């Protein structure tokens, strides 16, 4: 059973203001952000918002919500890939218009160029920005080492497994050293075991690189395991239903999943969906 959009909207309006943790040092400031689409009968349908959110440098924000709640839309809006209908997004105090240099994006699928080797794919952002090829090659190799693929630099994408391809995509997103990494369900297509490993990897990369990460997922355990904060979105139109601070410490092993504290967080988030009837 699912709720009609209007009912979901009214039910989840109050927590939206809680999300605005006014923080003077916020790296990303999202305020009253909305996205509407004009449907075929020419009426406007709101897919997302209004959403307000402040993100501090170095945070790992996971965004979880039912399918069609606009989590990917939120990410694409921050990435500057689509235009917003209302509200504002500022990064480092600057209002964004279009794709920004401070942002690296990892998509749902790796989107590697099959005619480029792993290293050449990682170096693509440098090639686009016409950076010094010698320096960017050194950095590309460094990043491949960071994602554990140093010895696969010369391989073509069709010689790599799905998990390896997605690691190459992560290294590519880090190539131009962006402050923010946006990840849109990057491990959705991977098998469960590879996915667990990738979760550990991305936590390690986050810890080593000090990036600010926004990570969209539809898996509640994944959201809790990865995030320092979990943004819970309600069904269409996506509104902030809850913001959960995950105090599980910086060092997280896969065993944490079975701990009581972990269960408390996942139950709290799942409760939102069950209460609003978003989970069958």
């Amino acid at each position, binding site marked *: 059973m699912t709720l009609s959009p209007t009912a979901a909207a009214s039910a989840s309006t109050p927590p939206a203001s809680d999300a605005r943790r006014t923080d003077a040092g916020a790296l990303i400031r999202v305020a009253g952000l909305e996205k509407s689409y004009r449907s075929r009968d020419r009426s406007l349908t709101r897919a997302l918002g209004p959403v307000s959110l402040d993100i501090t440098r170095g945070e790992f924000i996971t965004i979880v919500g039912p399918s069609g709640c606009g989590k990917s839309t939120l990410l694409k809006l921050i*990435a*500057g*890939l689509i235009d917003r209908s209302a509200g504002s997004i500022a990064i480092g105090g600057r209002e964004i218009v*279009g*794709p920004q*240099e401070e*942002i690296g*994006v990892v*998509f749902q*699928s790796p*989107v590697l*160029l*099959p*005619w480029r080797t792993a290293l050449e794919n990682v170096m*693509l*952002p440098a*090639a*686009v*920005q016409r950076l010094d090829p010698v320096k960017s090659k050194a950095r590309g190799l460094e990043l491949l080492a960071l994602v*554990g*693929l140093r010895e696969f630099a010369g391989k*073509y*994408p*069709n*010689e*790599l*497994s799905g*998990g*390896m391809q997605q690691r190459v995509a992560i290294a590519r997103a880090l190539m*131009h050293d962006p402050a923010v990494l946006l990840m849109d369900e990057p491990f959705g297509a991977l098998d469960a*075991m*590879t996915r667990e*490993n990738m979760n*550990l*990897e991305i936590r390690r990369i986050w810890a080593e690189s000090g990036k600010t990460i926004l990570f969209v997922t539809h898996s509640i355990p994944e959201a809790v395991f990865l995030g320092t904060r979990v943004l819970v979105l309600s069904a269409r139109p996506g509104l902030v239903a809850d913001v959960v601070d995950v105090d599980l410490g910086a060092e997280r092993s896969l065993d944490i999943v079975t701990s009581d504290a972990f269960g408390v967080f996942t139950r709290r988030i799942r409760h939102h969906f069950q209460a609003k009837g978003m989970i069958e």
Partner: protein
Amino acid sequence: MIDAAVGKLAAEPALGDEREPSWWQANRELVCIPLLFVIVVGAWEALIRLAEVPPYVAPAPSAIWRSLVNGIGSGLFLSNALVTLTEALLGFAGAAVLAIALGSAIAQSRFVERVLYPYLIAIQTTPKVAIAPLFIIWFGFGITSKIIMAGIVSFFPILVNVITGLRSTDSQKIELMRSLRASRWQTFTMVKLPSAMPMIFAGLHIAVIFSILGAIVGEFVGSKKGLGNLILQMNFNLDTAGVFAALVCLSSMGITLHLIMHWLQRRVLFWADQNQIPGV
């Protein structure tokens, strides 16, 4: 965890493949292809001899062979074949360059495509062979009119495939380039054109064979040299065996060009699944 990913890469032995294939299973095509040739040629030779068909109606394979050996020995075939090959290849090369340039320009804008489309359809549906006499008037009996004829005939298969290929770029790759703030030109050279190469190659394959057709048609309408010219002369002298020998030369030329294109494609499109390249 890297090892786990690497392990997946190693090819698993296919079950039921341990049995060594017998000599016959491994080589039956190599036996049957020449065998079929021998049977057909033998039956043909026998039919002509037994039925006492006059040589100007249909020559026996042995007569064609003698004609071929004589023609090659005297240099008659080689000198004429070189003329036809030059006409075809110059026409093909010119058509390839122009079609890729025009196709790229058209694919950049829906507006340009819509405006030009009716004209392109009109030109394409006109039988190009019908224009050949005009080219003789405009460009004379020399090599130029044949180059243009070969070019016109091979131009459209390339153009159509360039446009289709450039239009079918994976939208995720374009979004990736947008997120990297690539210019239109960079998106074109780094993503769209390489993505379109399998389609473009399929067009080039058809076009290189068409270019020989164009050159021959040009020579039929009016020429001083070339295999088409030779075929007309031999036909006039009722030297049917000679006509067949010239046809053998033409088809060898076609097969050679086809193989060269195939080799080139495997080198350029090493990254693509060869079975998915259309029309080869």
